[in-house]
């Protein structure tokens, strides 16, 4: 299954959830937020739905800014 993560095309096993994706990346859930196809995925739903082929995923964090 193909998806784009932060603009990078990537290959994933079918049925991968957002939660599993973050685990693969080694990203603590607390420090990030996730959008799927321009819609935010609530934390509570990270493990509910699997990604679909062609999904655009954004994973963001807080950084220095003014």
């Amino acid at each position, binding site marked *: 299954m193909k998806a784009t993560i932060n603009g990078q095309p990537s290959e994933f096993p079918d049925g991968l959830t957002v939660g599993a994706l973050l685990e693969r*990346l080694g*990203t603590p859930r607390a420090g*990030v*937020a996730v959008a799927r196809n321009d819609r935010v995925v609530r934390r509570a739903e990270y493990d509910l739905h699997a990604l679909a082929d062609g999904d655009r995923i954004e*994973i963001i964090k807080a*950084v*220095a*800014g*003014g």
Partner: protein
Amino acid sequence: MSDLLHVGRYEFSSRLIVGTGKYPSMEAMQAAHEASGAQMVTVAIRRIDLGNASGNTMLDYIDRSKLTILPNTAGCYNANEAVLTAHLARELLETDLIKLEVIGDAATLHPDVRETLDAAERLVRDGFTVLPYVGDDPIACKQLEDLGCAAVMPLAAPIGSGLGVCNPYSIRIIKERAGVPVIVDAGVGTASDAAIAMELGVDALLMNTGIAAARDPALMASAMKHAVLAGRQAYLAGRMEKRLYANASSPMRDLVGTGQVG
């Protein structure tokens, strides 16, 4: 003297909001935050580095028990990007506060009025407490207020320029006509700039580079704390009238006499 700043349902005793960008180190930032007395700090929202997805984030350097976080949409060029960024920020930080920033180009970082108004309307509808960064444009400020923004944040000068209040007339007009807090955002370069802005009657200041790019950020942060207080108190105290000619502080009568024939 109790003189509180109210923004939406939030209340602050400090009228200085500071950024987290451009500091020489995280330690320097934390020292400056401490010295500034600020109760709200801004952060930006960016993609994580997939190659190093486990690293620290800015949140590890902010004591949220003392500091309210104000996420921004810096870097967004249109309403769609800004709205998505705001929603991600809300999910990440569990706050409805958002500094809305939709710029027109990278050289001026000047806001795009149309996109800012569009994004503001959508974010207010989505329940955000919206603090939009805007030019010193009294009409755009009024329109943002009418859309339901909790404050308006006109610039004093281009972001990071340190030019101070380039146009005190427009800031004064904006404040006189505003029904929500006016927070001057961007352009403050040194303490007197902050005092001048506050003396115009604005409710608060947001600054980043003026502190972070000083030779001694923590000392400049303290300077800014005092300057904001000084400007605020001077505004409330009601300054003397200006006059072209002199007016003696000491009486001009009962002067000491000498034998010399005057």
